[in-house]
């Protein structure tokens, strides 16, 4: 009898106490879908957020968004200040995209702004992250694009570009600002005729932005750094300049990538990187050639390989100048040549590293015509 009583009491108490302290009801919360950070004078931070709202009418539900901008001391302070402005409890748990203004990450380290995202257990580590040309505020202030709220629009835009393999998949978790021996890069967004668009990649040196690439360059960059995926498309101009316009371009779709990166340290302690890319591609567009002749096809393969090798060399030079080690050469040095690594000053050494880049290409498919 008493045992049963104790059991019942325990269950009743357990049911009564759960969730009392830590319940967070969605109806009380205002969730942010996109947040942006910009530079403000005196080392402060200008944060802009778009809060998503759904109004349900008889005709169905309709998304609206509400934009707030505050100037604050830090990310968490910005959250507090925004909370002072909005009705309901501010919550970043459903954040989809986090934007950084270009000027902010050029002039400041990115790490301090992200700290709160890594510290809070409720933080959205799977939110996408990108750099905005100009300011993030300008982009978020677009508010609605067509029927979509800006947060949803940018998220979908980035997702579709990831599927197209034009930008890598980056979220707050995969960012690794504390990574050793590997520099990260982020997608670069810009407002183009009132619509946000992906413009390329922003390369970081450690935790500061140093260089940007346009979309053509960033595709080659992805191939070089091993972030490239199937279905990466490139429209190239094989080096036959005498053709009339309309005939000089070829579009290829990368089907298979084989990449080998070897870091070689010679006896005289000179660091050399041998980067070999072997691509299998499908030709998707080629108005000038008729690829039924094997000699024409091989010629095209040769020309495309040469052009890609040339482009790669240019991009590697750009990366070296910007101090961006996207290939992870430093990590390989740490892992395989630890003695050398302890001796050198990598920041000085990296621009002098000799890269031997080679791209070879093989056409495996030409569509349903040849």
């Amino acid at each position, binding site marked *: 009898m008493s045992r049963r009583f104790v059991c019942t009491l325990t269950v009743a108490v357990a049911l009564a106490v759960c969730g009392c302290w830590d319940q967070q009801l969605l109806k009380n919360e205002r969730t942010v879908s996109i947040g942006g950070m910009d530079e403000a004078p005196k080392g402060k931070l200008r944060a802009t957020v778009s809060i998503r709202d759904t109004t349900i009418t008889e005709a169905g539900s309709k998304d609206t968004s509400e934009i707030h901008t505050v100037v604050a001391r830090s990310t968490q302070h910005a959250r507090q200040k925004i909370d002072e402005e909005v009705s309901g409890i501010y919550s970043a748990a459903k954040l989809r995209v986090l934007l950084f203004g270009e000027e902010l990450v050029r002039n400041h380290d990115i790490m301090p702004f992200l700290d709160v995202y890594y510290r809070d257990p409720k933080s959205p580590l799977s939110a996408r992250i990108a750099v905005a040309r100009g300011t993030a505020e300008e982009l978020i202030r677009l508010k609605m694009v067509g029927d979509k709220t800006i947060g949803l629009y940018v998220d979908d835009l980035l997702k579709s570009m990831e599927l197209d393999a034009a930008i890598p998949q980056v979220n707050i*978790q995969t960012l690794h600002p504390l*990574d050793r021996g590997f520099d990260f890069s982020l997608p670069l967004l810009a407002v183009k005729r009132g619509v946000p668009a992906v413009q390329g990649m922003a390369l970081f040196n450690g935790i500061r932005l140093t260089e940007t690439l346009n979309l053509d360059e960033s595709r080659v960059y992805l191939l070089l750094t091993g972030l490239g995926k199937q279905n990466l498309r490139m429209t190239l101009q094989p080096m036959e300049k005498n053709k009339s316009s309309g005939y000089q371009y070829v579009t290829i779709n990368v089907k298979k990538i084989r990449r080998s990166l070897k870091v070689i340290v010679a006896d005289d302690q000179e660091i050399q990187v041998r980067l070999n890319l072997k691509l299998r591609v499908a030709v998707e567009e080629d108005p000038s050639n008729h690829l039924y002749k094997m000699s024409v096809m091989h010629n095209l393969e040769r020309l495309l390989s040469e052009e890609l090798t040339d482009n790669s060399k240019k991009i590697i030079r750009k990366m070296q100048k910007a101090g961006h080690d996207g290939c992870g050469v430093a990590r390989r040095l740490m892992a395989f040549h630890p003695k050398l690594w302890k001796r050198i000053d990598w920041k000085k050494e990296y621009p002098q590293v000799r890269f031997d880049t080679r791209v070879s290409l093989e056409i495996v498919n030409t569509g349903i015509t040849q």
Partner: protein
Amino acid sequence: MIAGKDKITPGQLMFVIIQAQIGVNILFLPSSVESVASSDAWISVSLAGITTMILILAIWGLSRRFPGMILFDYLPLLLGKPIGTIVHLVFAASFIAECSLTSLLFVNAVRDWIFPNTPKSIVLILILAVSLYMARENLRAIARFFVLTFGLIFLMIFIATYAYKEADIMYILPINQAGIPSIIKGALFSMNSFFGYEMLFFCYPYVQGKSRTILKAVFYANTFSVLVYVYLVFTCLLVFTPEEIKIIPQPILYMVKALSFTIIERADLYFLTIWTVVVTSTIMAYLFMSARSVSSLFGMKNHAGTTPFVTLIVFCISLYPHNQDMVNRLKSIVGILGSVSFVTLPIVLLCISYLFKVQRKESAEG
């Protein structure tokens, strides 16, 4: 003589040992060992696991010489009444301290990850109440419960395996970069994660079968625990950079948190839910051991009566520390007590038993 209904099979013994070993430490292990042995932490953990085998052998050798008796029955035979009582007290203190530390670390992890606003005492009461309910029972009931919940460990491993899509083998290269002294220091550091094998002291007389079968079962159990630990530590080392792992106290949860499946978000909550059961088993095992040692201190045959009081002591000890400093102090106390009673004493007792030829006479069993 032990009644037939209290007996457990060697298979059940295996599960009991595994459940007692795999507990709260699994979350902290990668980070705490990494701080000593850096990227070679996994070697340290393997070394610690191998050392545990030797200790298990010592406990087994000791128990074999006193058939039908648990540790506290033969302590006076080995050491004499006064010293035997002191050692008995040390053992009881270690079990209670270890139990409190486990509950404390569990509650802190729950506070940091799921319930930041819920009072610590409530979570503690809930977990201890369940453990108390189970720990009052005999060994067979506990063993059955442990067998029942064993499958959850695999679920944990499965969730963690998903993190391999972000792994990079180069984080642990070059091997042996920390140097052998650091690796050994790391192994000592991780020894306390393997505590739980001392359950053998209590289980040995209850297990059916030959002593060789028992040893085999415990060896298998320990091998399993070592493999799980090494696997999880290894995964964490591959996923996180050394700089990150230093600032993340619970790397496994952090790793799991970032995973986002199509329908499920925040996999860490699922992981923690499963892990709660695993930790509860550890707390149960320790409560059982504490209660057994306390009741035999007062000459009681049955431990069900002392269990509530032991639970109350555990509750008070684990509620008291409120900052990291105090937690660390408790940790070092447990470390000292543990290394005395779970590492040093089994070997010392075994030596005494062999040197002075103390063992239970076969006729006494009859």
